[in-house]
């Protein structure tokens, strides 16, 4: 046997990859300049970015923060960058950012919305994070009433009286469940609070306030405004629409034809008309639908219509969650001998709601953005406040600074929430495989 070998016996030393495929150059070639079409696109994009930045950057970076009106701003810009330089007038934001956040809410009471906002996160914690003690859920349930009380002020007995409605319903439910059966108990659970609120609620609050006056200074709705108003309408709307949406979704899924028809009709009607028409109803019609002599607050009317609006969308989100549950869950609940109410409360809803959380967050983002429409019916949300600010002689004609500020705040809120909901979606997706 000759000692010629056709196969190499030792390994070749490793070579470095070609310099054009590694490092910065490699990355550039791979991601920006692979092929002539891509290169042209890249150059076009770079040119576009250059044009946009060239227009915007000199406008943003101007030392006009301390200007007290449009003319002072102009003088400051001209002093720094020369005559004829177009620059922003940031003085308006310095002077009015508080107003854009709080509207005309009394200055000495700002702590109340701020406290409500901080407590909001405490209330949200047990819903969003599983590791937080479950006991906090009680606080989450009370929070909506606490928030309304903190914002509007007045007697503490009114929110307590409203909560009492739920308590009465629950007590009657427990009391009748044994003797009269689930149907009557459930009916009482829904009807008793409604009757309480419509008849005795206000009287009870007044009576108790007469005996033991506890309360904080009331603030009228006309003073609400800015992002505080948007957040309030959005939050209250979403919180109230959740139970309504659950009922509508269950109704839409049920075998009971009349109930189903009513729910489908309501959902499709609300989803078929623009929110602005519902806001018109709030501003002009809602008082006509109520018993003669009723004249309740415009923000409350808006919240009622926004709640109805959101509940239709919420119902569709929850219906998606219900549909995503495996049929085995329903059957398992049936085979355990649970009745419909028990199965829904203990087996179906906890799972369906968990699946629906990203959709609920999405609905909330949409609702939060839609709250700016209230400016059309004359409420002072950020967009409405812009007109007020422009009405001031000192700040007349300023558009971009204020729009920029409004956009920025909305972007921070909505982007943050949408990222959170995406994170949640990923977390839930892995949990279900």
């Amino acid at each position, binding site marked *: 046997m000759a000692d010629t070998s056709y196969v190499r016996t030792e390994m070749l030393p490793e070579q470095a990859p070609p310099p054009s495929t590694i490092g910065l150059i490699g990355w550039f070639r791979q991601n920006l300049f692979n092929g002539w079409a891509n290169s042209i696109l890249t150059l076009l994009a770079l040119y576009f970015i250059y044009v946009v930045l060239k227009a915007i950057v000199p406008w943003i970076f101007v030392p006009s923060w301390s200007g007290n009106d449009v003319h002072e701003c102009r003088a400051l810009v001209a002093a720094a960058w020369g005559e004829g330089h177009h620059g922003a007038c940031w003085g308006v934001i310095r002077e009015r950012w508080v107003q854009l956040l709080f509207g005309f809410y009394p200055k000495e009471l700002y702590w109340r919305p701020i406290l409500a906002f901080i407590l909001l996160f405490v209330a949200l914690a047990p819903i969003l994070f599983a590791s937080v003690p479950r006991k906090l859920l009680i606080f989450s349930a009370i929070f909506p009433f606490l928030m309304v009380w903190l914002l509007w002020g007045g007697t503490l007995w009114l929110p307590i009286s409203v909560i009492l409605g739920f308590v009465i319903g629950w007590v009657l439910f427990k009391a009748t469940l044994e003797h009269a059966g689930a149907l009557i108990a459930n009916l009482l659970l829904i009807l008793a609070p409604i009757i309480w609120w419509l008849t005795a609620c206000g009287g009870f609050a007044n009576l108790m306030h007469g005996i033991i006056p506890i309360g904080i200074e009331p603030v009228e709705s006309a003073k609400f405004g800015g992002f505080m108003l948007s957040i309030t309408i959005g939050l209250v709307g979403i919180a109230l629409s959740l139970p309504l949406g659950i009922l509508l979704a269950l109704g839409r899924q049920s075998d009971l034809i009349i*109930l189903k028809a009513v729910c489908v009709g309501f959902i499709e009607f609300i989803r*078929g*008309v623009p*929110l602005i028409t519902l806001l018109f109803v709030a501003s002009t019609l809602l008082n*006509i639908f109520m018993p003669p002599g009723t004249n309740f607050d415009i923000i409350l009317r808006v919240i009622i219509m926004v709640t109805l609006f959101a509940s239709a969308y919420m119902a569709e989100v929850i219906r998606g969650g219900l549909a995503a549950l495996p049929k085995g869950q329903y059957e398992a609940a049936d085979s355990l001998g649970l009745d419909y109410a028990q199965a829904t409360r203990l087996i179906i809803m906890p799972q369906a709601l968990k699946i629906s959380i990203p959709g609920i967050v999405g609905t909330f983002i949409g609702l939060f953005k839609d709250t*700016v429409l209230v400016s059309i019916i004359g409420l002072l949300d950020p967009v409405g406040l812009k007109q007020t600010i422009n009405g001031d002689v000192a700040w007349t004609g300023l558009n971009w600074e204020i*729009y920029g500020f409004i956009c920025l705040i909305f*972007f921070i809120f909505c982007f943050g929430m949408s990222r959170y909901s995406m994170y949640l979606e990923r977390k839930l997706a892995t949990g279900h495989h």
Partner: protein
Amino acid sequence: MASIPDQGTGGFRVSQLLYDTRYRSTTIQIIALILILLGIGWLINNTIQNLDALGKEPSLKFFGEPASYDINQRLVEYSSRDTHLRASFVGLLNTLLVAVLGCITATIVGVFVGVLRLSNNWLIARLMTVYIEAFRNVPVLVWILIVFSVMIETMPKPSAFRNGEASMLFNESLAITNRGIYTPAPMFENGLGSIRIFGESSLRFDLSLTFLAIAALFGVCFFISRKIKQRADRIQNETGDRPTTWYLRLGVLVVPMAILLWVLGLGWNFPELKGFNFKEGIHLRNSLLALWIALSLYTAAFIAEAVRAGIMAISKGQTEAAYALGIQPGRTMSLVILPQALRVIIPPLISQYLNLTKNSSLAIAVGYMDITGTLGGITLNQTGRELETILFLMLTYLAISLSISAVMNWYNNRVKLVER
């Protein structure tokens, strides 16, 4: 309820209505129905009492009264002496106009952006992400107002065209001003005239026979062009060679149209600067433009996300298989991926079209006279008939929404059948 009904001995007892699963659902429904009817009755009763107190008998007579306000952007002739019904009709057409225009542009932009966001080009993909996030996370009303302000503040005034500070584009035919865009209007020397539909009623409009003829010819040509393509497909299936047909198809589309336009005597009516403003031509007001652009860009951001989700739902194997067959990346996208992704994309697309149509009601913020601006705006304020106008406004939107979803669902079902 999967339980076996109790086989009760003896006759029917009232308690069976509650405890027997055979009757219980009926009982629940009847109770619910009674409660709902009571609630509705309560609302109607309140309404009647309140309207009585205000002295407003519900009636639709106001629709026949003269509207006495002007609508500057309109598709059909209208004067302030026309009725409120006519004004609402003009508004309805304006709503449909901006909705149709918006849906078309939003779809085109949305598909482009959605595809580009998945591009290999890092910079382009990032730019598209910035665009999508910026538009999705800021309210559409703010965008409409911003676009409106951009048009008013950055475009030249008509007077700037007089002293040469600004000039018209495309050989003196297109003027972009802060009052809107003026484009040339087509004119026909030997036009076929028009016929009036619905006589002298409030819903009358003039149907231009000239445009009808052009549309009909286009339809026929398009049909023939499709036939040529189908024939080419058939030959390709039989023999493997595809006959070159692009010049035939182009010719069929272009030549008859050119002849027809020549016969009709097509001319252009160019906008001209007269006094302080442009006259003649077509005037697209900046309220319409702002609404159209903002709605399109806003909705396009959502459509882009739907398109991206649809494309990502198609398995990577499809792309790889297409590459293995030697199909170019661009054609892979248009011939292999997008047709399959369409199935996933259409349902969210439907809801985006609905959203765009509903959002077009924000026209009221920039003064574009759509149906919210006419029926729900000035007509409501002038007549004081809140109940009737808002009810009609809602029913109109409901009808539009239901029609859109009906058409799109029909299309969705058709695509599904073809695909399977």
